[in-house]
């Protein structure tokens, strides 16, 4: 499995062959607070890099989820839909959002590695 990459919209992505697993970062969950609702893209639907790919809602507000790469959704994580608190508990492992078949691996090039993302999230504060 390849290195985990991060987007400026606070999503993480892990690539295994041409299947990418995507979720939101620990930092994102800390900003959002307690998550109480999640909506995921349907299996079989296509998503476009930086486009909308679901919604998370905390007790405070709704936030869009974006996909850091384009592709076809092959699986979504029903367990976080049923129990959104899992996202706060383990955002970067168990509480992944969806898996997609990646269209163009070069889209990963613009994403950050762990160190870059940590620096980015500290500096942006958002």
């Amino acid at each position, binding site marked *: 499995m390849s290195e985990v990459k991060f987007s400026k919209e606070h999503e993480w992505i892990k690539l295994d062959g041409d299947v990418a697993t995507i979720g939101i970062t620990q930092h994102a969950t800390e900003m959002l*607070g*307690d998550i*109480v*609702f999640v*909506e995921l893209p349907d299996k079989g639907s296509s998503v476009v890099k930086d486009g909308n790919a679901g*919604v998370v*809602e*905390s*007790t*405070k*507000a*709704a936030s869009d989820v974006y996909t850091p790469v384009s592709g076809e959704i092959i699986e979504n994580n029903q367990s976080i*839909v049923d129990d*959104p*608190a899992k996202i*706060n508990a383990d955002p970067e492992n168990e509480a992944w959002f969806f898996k997609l078949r990646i269209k163009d691996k070069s889209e990963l090039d613009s994403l950050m590695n762990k160190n870059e993302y940590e620096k980015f999230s500290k500096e942006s504060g958002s």
Partner: protein
Amino acid sequence: MNNKKTALNSLHKKYGAKFVPFAGYEMPIQYSSGIIEEHKYTREKAGIFDVSHMGQLYIKGENSLAEDLEKIFPSELKNAKLNQSKYSFLMNDEAGIYDDLIITKVEGGFNIVLNAACKYSDLELLKKLLDNKYEINLSEELSLIAIQGPEAAKILEKIIYGVSNLNFMNGNWFNYLDKNIYITRSGYTGEDGFEISIKNKDAEVFTEKLINEGASLIGLGARDTLRLEAGLCLYGHDMDINKSPIEANLKWAISKNRIVSGGFIGFEKIKSQIEKGVKKVRVGIKPEGRVIAREKTAIFSEDNKNIGEITSGTFGPSIQASLAMGYVESSFSKIDTKIFLEVRGKKYPASITNLPFYKKNYVKGANK
């Protein structure tokens, strides 16, 4: 941004508060444990709320004051018992609500607790309505600290002897460190609790004592989920200048005798709304799934007609379900009426439901 800070600001910071600007104040939206934990702590033990941003108004005056206030408010004030609190409204001639408030008969006058966002305009309006006949003081020296939850009485009693004898919606003076402070048994969470009016300089030490006795600081986020579960209105959202107490489904707060006798601002409108009914009315709404319908969400009937709008909505940590309040055309306000909520372009099924969503635990002596 030059937001005011309450006397508890540094204490909030110490407990990991995340701040938001609210009605001109820097207020904690949550602390380190988060909204859901804070909410549950209040329901199970006792939460402390810094509500010092709210206005604490004192109007000095004898018998003629109660008479003059009855010309403004739809409550019975002339025969109010000493230290009795009433929930009331400041309205315009059309019964639109300027503010909702708690008015308490005290020695030598009345105390009124006002919403933070409205307090300065309320003050000006009241001065005008009372023809500057009375001394009115909107305190900048007092903090207001609420403690709410099933253990509130037990905890507060350890610090202030005798408070647990207070009846709901009643207040009194109590001794704290050889000073007199005014405490009412009231709150806005659906739990038993107290509101303590205390000098700014004493507020922090007092609050730390509550914490040491087992209460925990709670932010605006949980305050919102708690009051929503309790079916209580938030001014500026569930009620405002374009809605009357009748439309807001708060007729219970208007004294029966005053509805008969009249003589307060907005009376004609309220009388006619009671007799002829209202076009729109506030209702409780329960979405079928977990979807959250927030303020401004459009409400549709089964035959796809736009029949209203959500004014507050969230996920209720104690009821473990989504919940909302909103205004619908009166013909759709019957309990169990099926409706649809349009969230992000999709329509989700929901139904009209009884309020409150969460059953209250108020103590004896409750009066309206």
